[in-house]
């Protein structure tokens, strides 16, 4: 396999994981199969397909617990510096794994939340900053935001600091920070640095 092919396969595997983490399983399968076409017998791609296939089957057909490999998948994502996707993967997983494995998954979720919380804090900076919405309502409607983000946006009035927005949103503090961080990254929310 050439150097370029190697990079391509690696990229396809990574993109597949990210998609899988966000719940887009079909698209993830497509990318991993594409990786196999470029590198037939690639162990990593086969592993991903096997694990994902097991988890997507109904529970009755799948007596084995899915969580262990899910945690492994999440670890891979963390190694690939994609903690967000790892958390998505773990929190969107089906329930029903044996207690020990569930605990491992839950512990990892907590670790990831703590890590990401610190990342969001660092990215948002002082929470006494006052955010404003960039663009018009029309611009916004073309985007794909969840209702919780819409709710946070509705509270942005050019007077209320981030700390108060988070407090009164009634949302879990982590979720509120994540939503604000994402909207800031996407250029929807802005504030003076």
């Amino acid at each position, binding site marked *: 396999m050439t150097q370029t092919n190697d990079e391509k396969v690696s990229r396809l595997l990574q993109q597949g994981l990210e998609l899988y983490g966000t719940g887009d399983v079909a698209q993830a399968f497509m990318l991993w199969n594409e990786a196999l076409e470029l590198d037939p017998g690639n162990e990593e791609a086969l592993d991903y397909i096997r694990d994902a296939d097991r988890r997507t089957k109904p529970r009755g057909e799948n007596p084995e617990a899915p969580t262990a490999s899910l945690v492994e998948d999440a670890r891979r994502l963390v190694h690939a510096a994609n903690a967000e996707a790892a958390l998505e993967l773990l929190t969107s997983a089906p329930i029903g794994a044996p207690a020990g494995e569930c605990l491992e998954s839950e512990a990892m979720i907590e670790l990831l939340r703590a890590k990401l919380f610190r990342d969001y804090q660092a990215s948002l900076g002082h929470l006494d900053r006052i955010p404003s919405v960039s663009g018009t*309502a029309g611009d*916004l409607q073309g985007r*794909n935001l969840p*209702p919780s983000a819409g709710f946070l946006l509705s509270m942005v009035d050019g*007077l209320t600091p981030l700390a108060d927005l*988070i*407090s*009164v*949103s*009634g949302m879990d503090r982590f979720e509120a920070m994540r939503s604000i961080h994402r909207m800031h990254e996407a250029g929807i929310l802005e504030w003076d640095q």
Partner: protein
Amino acid sequence: MSRVIGIDLGTTNSCVSVVENGQSTVIPNSGGYKTTPSMFGISQDGKRLVGHLAKRQAITNARNTIFAAKRLIGRRFDDPEVQKSIDLCPYEIVRGPNEDPRIKVGGKTFTCPEISGIILREMKRVAEEYLSETVQEAVITVPAYFNDTQRQCTKDAGKIAGLEVLRIINEPTAAALSYGMNRQGDEKIAVYDLGGGTFDISILEMSDGVIEVLATSGNTFLGGEDFDRRIVQHLVEWFEESEGMDLRGDTMALQRLKDASEKAKCDLSMRDVVEINLPFIASDSEGPRHLNYELTRENLENLVHDVVEGTLKSVEQCCVDAGVQAQDIDQIVLVGGQTRMPLVQKRVTEHFGKRPHKGVNPDEVVGLGAAVQAAALLDADNDMLLLDVTPLSLGIGTYGGHFARLIDRNTTVPVSKGHIFTTTRDDQSAVKIRVLQGESDMANENDLLGEFVLSGIRPAPKGEPEVEVSFDIDANGIVSVSARDLATGKEQSITVSSTGTLSDSEIDEIIEEHDLYEVQIKD
């Protein structure tokens, strides 16, 4: 000399004013708003929120957001008004140790004066920020129908806020003052007050500087929020029809709908049509859904027509109680933001056959009047004579369950009156004085303001001892009662403090606790 502020402590919103260079001015808060929601809440992360911030979580964190505590202040837990609040309010109202209603939020139980105290403290802070000086004294307004206990509790709330309450005045009186009506000749004034959560109509008679409340009526559970609710309901139904999604169980969506409805309602007082745009109000497998709706003034009027008509029924009742015809009214004053609605103004004009006064912002008119009164109290040269009257008759419970009236309703305050009573049994050594307020001849149909025992009466046949009971009502309408055995000179007296009022030590404890909290948040 520090300035005295006037505070309209409203059920839904509060407003603080001051007289500067002879002009009364409303003081805006740091957000630029001239009124502040009378709301207190504790956020999910334990932060104490007052005013606009508390309002923002009113639906998403409803159990921990207190509004309309004024409906509860100074009432007994068993009062029908309190029971109705228990049915309608999302926060928890519990029975207090003095049979008073208390509110449980964020794991802590608050008394009603404490909640009002928190709102007043916020208004004090707003004033101090604006004036750049410490404020220690205030005039606070209350509804004309507030009894002694409710007035006393409001005064306690002021103390909790760190304010000396120089005067408690009636809201309709304050509204009339802000128009300078006390300087005009004898006339009858109707004050139509449609606030956020309550509707009050009062008929006042102005004569020689004495403002007498001839009658007051209304509905303590009707206000601008009913208008908002109708719009929300309409939007939810429309969204369900057009998008097939039910938003009723979605608190985030409902909070946005409530905020947008209130704004649309206000805008429709100046425009014929408004657009309500709520992007990302919901989502499903097909992606985000937006709510985009055009609401016209006509739509709104159809939605709330019956609510407006309901207020006019109270107006009719009030005129009957006051013994006047609608056409006898010389002036009409509108109070409360909801009276900006053209439909309200139109129907009031039609009802009285004359146009209401305009010129003073209806949200601010009561607060401005309180500031006028505050300035007059400070100015020795001010010749303004403002005398309120007692809203209800005062007396004591007597043998056979009767009510002996010592001071009649509508007596100008301050006032002192006494009467001699005697014993009902031979060798009776003590008498229990039950202080009551109300209009019924039967004691148990009136409000019990307080009770105390005068003991050590000299043994004598029944009917012989003479006990002089004296009532004093100060300018705030607050009652003191004393009883004296004329033979022995033995005397007992109380400043009436019954159910719902706090003892001095309780107030001090609350002040200390709130001071500690202030220090905590500064850290």
